[in-house]
């Protein structure tokens, strides 16, 4: 039945005398301005929702319906943000957090994918590790922080390890799921064409599991961010988490909020990056 699924009915004119190649017809078709506007409708409403929330917040603060020292206000956050970014400290904090998070996340993705593919390919390994993985995944990951600090000290290494610890499990779990769901047809094709074991991993299982892996990356990024921020709270030795805590200890809500807004933007960007990767590299899974 799959065989009949097609993007465009024009492609149904099967045989060779058929029309010239019509790839990705939706990309070449001309949009009217009305279509464009309709396409923008949902992002516009999205922005409108945020604007309304900010306006209500600003009004409540300005009319002292809530205590501005307590709740701050969008305007005050903006002012605090300008001051923050005119000084160097925030860049150091962002740099430290970014570097440690980046290293940790990279290791999670590479190691998590490999571990997942290996476990997913073997019935025995899968049965052996299923319980362990489930237990580890159900326990809140930041709970292991004190143990990790005890083992690796308070420093960069510990924070990188907590990022890996937080981020690797969703990747392992998703990659296992992806490689176990490997289409029986793909297996038969790779067997029939004498694919060596190693090539089977990276030429068949890896691309076939890519949609699963990328949704694992999405989860992993979220959990990794939680991991590193909590670690910075805990250790109190720099980074974005520590920066927020430091501002709050001086009762500077606006300053803390400005940092939080920065983090929101970063998290959103990371998410969009993964979404872009999904569209770019795993788009076939949507239409198949």
């Amino acid at each position, binding site marked *: 039945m799959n065989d009949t699924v097609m993007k*465009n009915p024009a492609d149904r004119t*099967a045989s060779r005398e058929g029309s010239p190649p019509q790839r990705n017809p939706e990309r070449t078709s001309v949009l009217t301005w009305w279509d464009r506007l309709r396409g923008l409708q949902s992002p516009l409403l999205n922005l409108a929702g945020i604007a309304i929330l900010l306006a209500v917040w600003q009004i409540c603060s300005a009319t002292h319906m809530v205590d501005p020292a307590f709740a701050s206000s969008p305007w005050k956050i903006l002012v605090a943000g300008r001051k923050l970014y005119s000084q160097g400290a925030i860049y150091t904090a962002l740099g430290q957090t970014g570097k440690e998070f980046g290293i940790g996340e990279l290791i999670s993705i590479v190691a998590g994918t490999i571990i997942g593919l290996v476990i997913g390919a073997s019935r025995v390994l899968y049965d052996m590790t299923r319980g362990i993985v489930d237990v580890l995944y159900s326990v809140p990951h930041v709970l292991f922080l004190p143990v990790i600090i005890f083992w690796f000290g308070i420093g960069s290494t510990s924070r990188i390890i907590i990022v890996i610890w937080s981020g690797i499990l969703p990747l392992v779990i998703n990659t296992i799921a992806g490689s176990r769901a490997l289409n029986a*047809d793909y297996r038969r094709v790779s067997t*029939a*064409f*004498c694919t060596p074991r190693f*090539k089977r991993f990276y030429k068949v299982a890896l*691309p076939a599991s*890519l949609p699963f892996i990328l949704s694992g990356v999405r989860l992993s990024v979220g959990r990794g961010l939680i991991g590193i921020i909590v670690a910075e709270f805990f250790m109190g030795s720099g980074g974005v988490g520590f920066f927020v805590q430091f501002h709050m200890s001086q009762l500077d809500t606006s300053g803390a909020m400005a940092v939080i807004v920065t983090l929101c933007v970063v998290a959103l960007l990371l998410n969009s990056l993964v979404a872009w990767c999904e569209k770019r590299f795993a788009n*076939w899974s949507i239409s198949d």
Partner: protein
Amino acid sequence: MSESKRTPLLQARNLRLGHRTGRSREFVVAIDSIDLTIDTGEFISVVGPSGCGKTTFLEAVAGLVPVASGDLLVNGTPIKGPARNRAIVFQSASLFPWRTVEQNVWFGLEVQGRLNDETRQRTQQILHTVGLEKYMKARPDELSGGMRQRVNLARALAVSPDVLLFDEPFGALDAMTRESLQDELLRIWQSDPDGPKTTAIFITHDVTESVLLSDRVIVLSRNPGRIVADIAITAPRPRISSQWRLDPKFTEYCSEILHALHPEQKAAGRSMTAATESSV
């Protein structure tokens, strides 16, 4: 065609095949005690009712299903697993959706470490032969069912196999597409410069298809499969599809095969079978 020099390529002796199924891993027989010799260069069709073990037999030759008992020999040596010189065209196209048409076609070459300028060029040539030169960079999900089967065929041709195995490659297509692909396969087979060196085993449940393409048709009985007829199609090659399909001998072969398939219908009269076969 190779009467003068009979070199048995494939030999099945008292061959028994089956699957282990369910929790109990109980053995279920699919093919029961088959004796068969296939010569190099033959195009041989296997027809039989659905579920009689055609796919099982083909996959055993491909090395995907183990031999339960008896012998299954290629060039005198038992089949132990898949081999590079045997390629299979699957029943469903089974293409990798993340690869382009071209990349799907050279998959076998790539994983066998044989992808180079020369084989790439050969791939292009094959894509021309099957009429996909315009779709080389397309993705499988942009293709129709018939085009996917062309890719499936091209992928098997690309590894230059000695034995080509077909598992009802046109079974799921609409009648018109199927007919044009049959004609093209006939053309490709007959125009292949090293055609006589390649052997084809073609599984089908379409009687006209088997008569059109083959040098020999093997008819299997209902499950478990046994050989009930072995019919040589002696029409000379190259055959021209439009003429051969209308030849009175073509119809004769079809009824002969149909009678072997449905012996119980023999009494029901030849005229009726003749009417049904033309619509098969």
